[in-house]
């Protein structure tokens, strides 16, 4: 509408600018001369280039915090899409196994590097053979000792004891994790000892393993001699034959949490946006009709009461029973039960303003209902609607967390923030709490952004703030 007016006003404006210029020149020459009548002047008061949305945008941009958060959100969204394309990334659901033992790399702590131990040049290591030529699997484990197998202690040490196991000499860790069976005076060697646990026999008093599994070092850093090797420079022994770190660590299954979090954010945001938009459309439509058209009030109140009071849990269980758990099922279930909140909210707002004078005036002028709704009511409510919609996205994600809590959410093979947070809940007091912290931080950033942006937009959309 404004554009049309602008187009019509353009030639008029051009003429006015000319008039103004000529008048200014005339006024400079003769400030006290008479001003003549001009038709263009008369028109000038009727045209303005005020644009509602333009002013809203300008007011919004002035709020630097909101703008900053908007860019953060946009960056986040972009990142969830491009993350899989970056180099050195693990696929989201891929279980990462240790290359030589085949065991999952579960619960690796988050770190910027894959290096486990730094060793100086000249360190002796033992090789575990495997295929790759560029990296060598090393450790300082001579052999494993079975639980309750006996060995002879040759020299006692507070941290490591030197022992003899069937002719092989090596070192054995002496701490709470091995609980060696030692006599009253452990320094008086030799004596027999054992542990109730399966332990390792090391070639030197130190632990160059990843919880007992071999570490990796580039082959060129070693001087190899059969099964033994010596490092030829100071280097890092890594947990995997690559330097692609687990920035967020791994979870219990051995999946890279970094990839899971971004994949999950993408899924959750997708669900959130879809649900918010659909809910808004249905909610506004029903809410407006409910609030404005008096005849529908009773009927829609009844419908609302019915839909609102049927427990969402029953609906969710039955839907999950008929349609297998999945993203579309979840979206369908959440929209089915979620539109009522928005409808009620809009209806209440409409009730408050529907009998204000300006609406009564419109009605007595004979304006059609549709026009009243679109021109009188909805624009008045833009600010609160925007806020509500902005909060609907994190709200949808929050509902997803709750639905997963009661067991009806997405299957674990589809990562989502809800899944990740629920899986991490039990780990709060453990050292694996990073599996909870990272998804929560991402969720918090999303919620904070939407909140601030929603509030800023609502503030900006209020026409009173445009001046």
């Amino acid at each position, binding site marked *: 509408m404004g554009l049309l007016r602008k187009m019509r006003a353009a030639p008029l404006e051009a003429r006015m600018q000319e008039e103004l210029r000529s008048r200014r020149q005339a006024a400079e020459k003769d400030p006290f001369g008479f001003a003549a009548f001009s038709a263009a002047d008369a028109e000038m008061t009727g045209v303005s280039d005020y644009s509602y949305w333009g002013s809203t945008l300008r007011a919004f941009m002035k709020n630097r915090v909101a703008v900053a958060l908007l860019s953060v959100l946009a960056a986040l969204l972009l990142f969830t899409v491009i993350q899989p394309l970056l180099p050195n990334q693990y696929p989201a659901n891929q279980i990462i196994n240790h290359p030589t033992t085949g065991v999952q790399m579960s619960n690796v702590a988050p770190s910027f590097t894959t290096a486990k131990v730094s060793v100086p040049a000249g360190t002796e290591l033992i090789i575990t053979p495997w295929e790759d030529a560029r990296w060598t699997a090393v450790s300082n484990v001579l052999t494993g000792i079975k639980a*309750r197998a006996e060995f002879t202690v040759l020299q006692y040490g507070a941290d490591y004891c030197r022992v003899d196991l069937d002719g092989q000499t090596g070192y054995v860790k002496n701490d709470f994790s091995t609980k060696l069976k030692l006599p009253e005076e452990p320094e008086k060697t030799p004596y027999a000892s054992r542990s109730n646990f399966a332990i390792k026999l090391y070639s030197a008093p130190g632990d160059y393993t990843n919880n007992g599994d071999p570490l990796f070092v580039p082959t060129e850093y070693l001087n190899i001699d059969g099964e033994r090797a010596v490092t030829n420079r100071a280097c890092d022994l890594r947990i995997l034959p690559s330097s692609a770190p687990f920035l967020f660590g791994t979870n219990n299954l051995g999946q890279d949490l970094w990839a899971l979090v971004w994949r999950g954010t993408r899924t959750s945001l997708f669900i959130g946006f879809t649900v918010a938009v659909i809910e808004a459309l249905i909610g506004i439509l029903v809410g407006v009709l409910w609030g404005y058209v008096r005849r529908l009030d009773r009927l829609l109140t009844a419908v609302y009461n019915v839909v609102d009071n049927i427990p969402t849990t029953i609906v969710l269980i039955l839907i999950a029973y008929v349609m297998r758990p999945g993203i579309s099922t979840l979206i369908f279930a959440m929209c089915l039960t979620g539109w009522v909140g928005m409808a009620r909210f809009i209806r209440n707002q409409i009730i408050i303003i529907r009998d204000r004078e300006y609406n009564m005036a419109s009605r007595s002028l004979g304006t059609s209902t549709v026009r009243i709704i679109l021109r009188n009511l909805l624009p008045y409510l833009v600010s609160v609607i925007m806020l509500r919609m902005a909060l609907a996205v994190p709200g949808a994600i929050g509902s997803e967390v709750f639905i997963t809590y009661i067991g009806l959410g997405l299957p674990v093979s589809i990562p989502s923030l809800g899944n990740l947070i629920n899986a991490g809940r*039990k780990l709060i007091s453990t050292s694996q709490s990073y599996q909870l912290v990272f998804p929560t931080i991402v969720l918090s950033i999303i919620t904070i952004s939407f909140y601030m942006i929603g509030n800023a937009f609502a503030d900006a959309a209020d026409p009173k703030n445009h001046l």
Partner: protein
Amino acid sequence: MKKLLSTLLVLMMVASFAPAMAEENVYTTLYSGEITTLNYLTTTTTNEFALSANLIDTLVEYDRYGRVQPSLAKSWNVSEDGLTWWFDLRTDAYWVDANQNVVAPVTANDFIAAAQYILNAENASSSAQTLYSVIAGAEAYYKGTAAPAEGQEPAPKMDWDTVGIHALDDYTLRYDLIQPTPYFLSMVDYMCFMPVYGPFLEEKGADFGLATGNDTILYCGPYVLSEFAPQERRVLTKNETNWDAKNVLIDKLEFVYNKEASTISAELFLRGEVDSASIDQAIATEWLADPEKADFIRPQRPTSFYSYFFAFNFDPQFDAAYEPDNWKKAVVNENFRKSFYYGLDRVKAKMVSDAENAESWLFNAITPAGFVNIDGVDFVDMGALKEISALGTGTYQAEKALEYRDQAIAELTEAGVTFPIKVLFPYNPGTTGWDEECQVIEQQLEELFGPDYIDIIVEAGPSSGFLSEVRRSGKYALLKCNWGPDYSDPQTFTDPFAVGNSYQFAYKNADMDELMQQYYALVQKAIGITDDLEARYLAFADVEAFLVNHAIVIPYGFSTGGYTASRIDPFTSQYPASLLAVERFKGSVLLDAPMSTDQYFDAYDQWLTERAALSAE
């Protein structure tokens, strides 16, 4: 002066408390599954019989070494043909109410009253089937009390005298069986053979056993339910009138209800608010790495004998999109199945639930390790199963698996099977950890075999109605199933594969007939041996070895018990030779400090030695 007086007073107060504190032996823990009823005659759920096992005594019970001990029955004997059992009851057992007031002595009539209640179909007891599967005349009587199905004739009403349960006098009980049942004694320690005080049952009528308070049942066991607030707490107090009260070492058992027990019990244990807590795998790894906390936890002794195995479906009924016909042709090929048997890394899959001790939860037969034994030799180490069990985790042999794969590919391509073969592998999303396990197995097998052999499709089934929707309707190709024993004999583990089973439907597939006929013949042979226990077990060992050698199912293991932080000494509790024995607290010793893993292994060794010494006697 004042100070002296007040100090004296305080000392006196403390002194008066001290004896009280020294006497009271209280065990507190959290629970998250509330019982729905106290009526032990109708229910078979673990939650409920775990409680009843401590409140009601049975004819026999088991000691810590798994040897049967007299309980309400002083002695018993069996007839030559094995069809009749007599039990002599003790005369010093009494029924008491929740306040431990004596109501009446326990007599043989109480067992009759209980059986009559259970076999009355109107009471809808879930343990009726166990009873009528073994007692002569019980099934006909039960059917006679049932309301007929639509359009069918009602079954004839039978007289109670036709049922094989008789009270010869107040303290002698006789059971007549349908066929010789060597494991009958272990069956007798179960709910359907529990007594109930007849006049009390009649008086209460429909209110008997309602979970509304502790006054709806009478007690004769080692404990009474002194406090019961459902969804809040329950307190069991030692029953001083019990015939064996001196062997009940813990005075009070306090259970506090908390739905988040798995999340917060570890923390509560550290604060000393509970005496035992089940420790999650994540927290266990954490504590084991901490020098102080490492001593608080120990592995949990497997107490439930539910056996888990992977079943192949021989009669697939799933969607055409997953190519059921293709699967049906493939699964009857033995090499195909064997490639799975040797290719599945069970340890890796188990590590999802227990990273430290995954191997300890696996076994290689359908009957679990530790379930039954003869003179200390475990069933799974007998006869044909010996070699199979000795393999341990060595069932995973990648080269062999690939060999079988190549053979299978050659044979199946001739049969017209298209590769990759789609394998529908569903799981129940309501069970924690199952989906993770499926993911691990899927990736492990596909990595081993390459993309041209099989394509495993992991799918979530519905969480309610999973069994009927997925397993019983045959909508799977490969599925992790489980079966729990009904009595202490390997025969119970042949039920899931019997004709008409709802597990793997082998009987419906004509191409499996030859193999299954052999199997059923072996089963029949084993069931028939009722006089010589060793021969019987060897025959059942043949049965299970047959299943494993032809890879008809892939055995898996226990569902893990993980770690626990507990002040109870597990080797003093009754050994789980029957379903109820493991739930009893009678005889359990409450230690001052929790047992550590180290102490656990030492104590286990000692227990094994003691048990071996006893069997040698």
